[in-house]
């Protein structure tokens, strides 16, 4: 089956609050799509509306050529993985995984076989008879994952599944999730507020804010060439610099002139320079800025540089150089081509 999802003019109101303001979204079959945004942006509501747990106020949701927004959640065949795991506490691991198959009236022998296969896939075959409370958080989330995939869902939905786990576990489960999704090839929608998770996992990221979609693109597109300042700042640290635009080029406050990647852009707030793209060179005498603070982070050193009335962030990677002290005069080296950022005031 072609499990593409099509969302048209979807809105959701809770009493007086509008949580979704007319979402239009096409998700091709097999795509791993990330819904990324700050808390309260409506991403979880959108996911729950797709799952059927929440009813939309208006608009349509289509699964391939079938309209599903009026269909009960139990009839949609979507797997949903929760931040809270939401395992059935009174059932063993295998009973949890078997639940969806029992609901589908699958034969007993078939259930045993498929449950075992799903638990094998998430590496928990040895814990099949345990109760959820006897498992760690990471193991519980693997059970939830097995429970969601064992029903062979048309679409897999993830609601911040890694947010309750500690950092190390989050990384390992993230890799497993990605591998599993690629192996199964199932259309997946994944909600998160964590930009590094979004970039690591997604084929594509949809950035949301205040119940609307800001922009959409591959992780590289959105990180390197975001349209909006909001996207740039949400996807990692960025310096937004008020530069003087001169046709195809711009002049930075400290005098450097750079080429523009998108000189035709309107409603511009400034140019973006990622801290890792801003090199600093210690100098004596004539300088662009002065180091205000530094922070040693192991793999890299972060610097805050005061230049032209603004504090800029720069990251020096590698450990060979000594850390520059505060008060050190530096020259700033920006990339050859810079990207203009639009103000979000102009978004729908």
């Amino acid at each position, binding site marked *: 089956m072609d499990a593409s999802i099509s969302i048209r003019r979807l809105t959701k109101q809770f009493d007086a609050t509008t949580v979704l303001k007319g979402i239009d979204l096409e998700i091709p079959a097999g795509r791993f799509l990330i819904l990324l945004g700050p808390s309260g942006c409506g991403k979880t509501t959108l996911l*729950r509306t797709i799952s059927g747990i929440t009813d939309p106020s208006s608009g349509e949701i289509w699964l391939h050529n079938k309209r599903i927004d009026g269909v009960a959640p*139990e009839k949609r065949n979507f797997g*949903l993985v*929760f931040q*809270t795991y*939401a395992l*059935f*506490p009174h059932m063993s691991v295998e009973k949890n995984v078997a639940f969806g198959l029992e*609901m589908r009236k699958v034969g007993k022998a078939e259930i045993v076989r498929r449950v075992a296969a799903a638990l094998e896939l998430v590496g928990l075959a040895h814990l099949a008879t345990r109760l959820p409370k006897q498992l760690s958080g990471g193991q519980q989330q693997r059970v939830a994952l097995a429970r969601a995939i064992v029903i062979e869902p048309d679409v897999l*939905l993830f609601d911040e599944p890694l947010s309750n786990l500690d950092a190390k576990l989050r990384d390992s489960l993230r890799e497993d999730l990605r591998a599993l999704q690629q192996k199964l090839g199932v259309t997946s929608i994944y909600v998160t507020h964590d930009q590094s998770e979004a970039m690591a996992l997604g084929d594509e990221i949809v950035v949301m804010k205040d119940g609307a979609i800001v922009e959409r693109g591959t992780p590289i597109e959105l990180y390197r060439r975001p349209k909006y300042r909001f996207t740039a700042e949400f996807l990692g640290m960025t310096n937004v610099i008020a530069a003087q635009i001169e046709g195809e080029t711009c002049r930075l406050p400290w005098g450097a002139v750079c080429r523009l990647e998108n000189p035709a852009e309107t409603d511009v707030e400034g140019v973006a320079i990622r801290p890792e793209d801003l090199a600093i060179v210690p100098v004596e005498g004539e300088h662009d800025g002065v180091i205000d603070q530094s922070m040693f982070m192991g793999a890299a050193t972060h610097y805050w540089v005061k230049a032209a009335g603004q504090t800029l962030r720069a990251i020096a990677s590698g450990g060979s150089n000594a850390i520059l002290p505060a008060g050190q005069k530096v020259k700033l080296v920006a990339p050859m081509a810079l990207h203009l950022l639009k103000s979000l005031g102009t978004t729908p």
Partner: protein
Amino acid sequence: MNPTKVNTLTLLLCLLPGVGYLLVFFGLPLVTVVFGSFTSRAPGASPITLDTWITLFSSPVYLDGLWFSLWLGIAPTAVSLLVSLPLSALMQANETSQKLFGTLYRIPLVVPGVVAGFLVLVILDRGGMASRLLMPLGIPMPRLVRDDWGVGAIIASSWKTIPFMTLIIAGAMAAISKDILAAARTLGANRLTVLWRIQLPLAQPGITAAVLLSFIGSLGSYVIPSLLGPAYPLPLSVHMFAEGFQKGNWPMVYAMGTLLSVLAIAVLLAYYAIVGSFSRGSAALTARS
């Protein structure tokens, strides 16, 4: 505090009036009562005797009373459970239903049992409001008050018990995470299956408490059966009053009291035995598959 802690605390608080009352005003005097049932009131007779117990178990009037007491304990509990379970589940559905039912079901909590009894009497007795409404339609009013099956008493008892049960069961159900219910839905369970497979098993400790407290309350209830119950049989509670205050036969009062207490305890133990074998059974099933 985590939700399970709050839930346990809520349940304990709900249990406190019942269990605390039982311990202080029931457990302690129980010993005195049991002992009293073996004493004799006849002057000159042996101070320790089984006479009262022999009379109790050989008199058809008393035996019928015993069965009727049991009936008046079980029937309202069953009726209340049938109403309280769906009501509690509906209250979890959304905020509107919670507000609506949440207010409605509390009303009977503040109405004393004797008032509830008179309400039922005024409405359901022959010549009462219901029969006057039905008369123009040519429908005869069935006998619901002072009838052989104690229907009036069961209605009044249930009317009192339902909010009490709902309070405990809805509390237990509200403690179940909404995500768990949503997970069951997305896995293919409809609302009824969710109630049966998820909500009931998880709310089971609360349901147990509610059932036992309701049964024990109805078993010994005096006001409602004496107002609404039939002239025969009389439940033991009503017999106890007559034996004590009209005949002065206190050993018989003690014997009947002992019997009622033993019944309550027996039901409690039987309930735990059944629940225990259920959970052992499902655990065995899990281990086997």
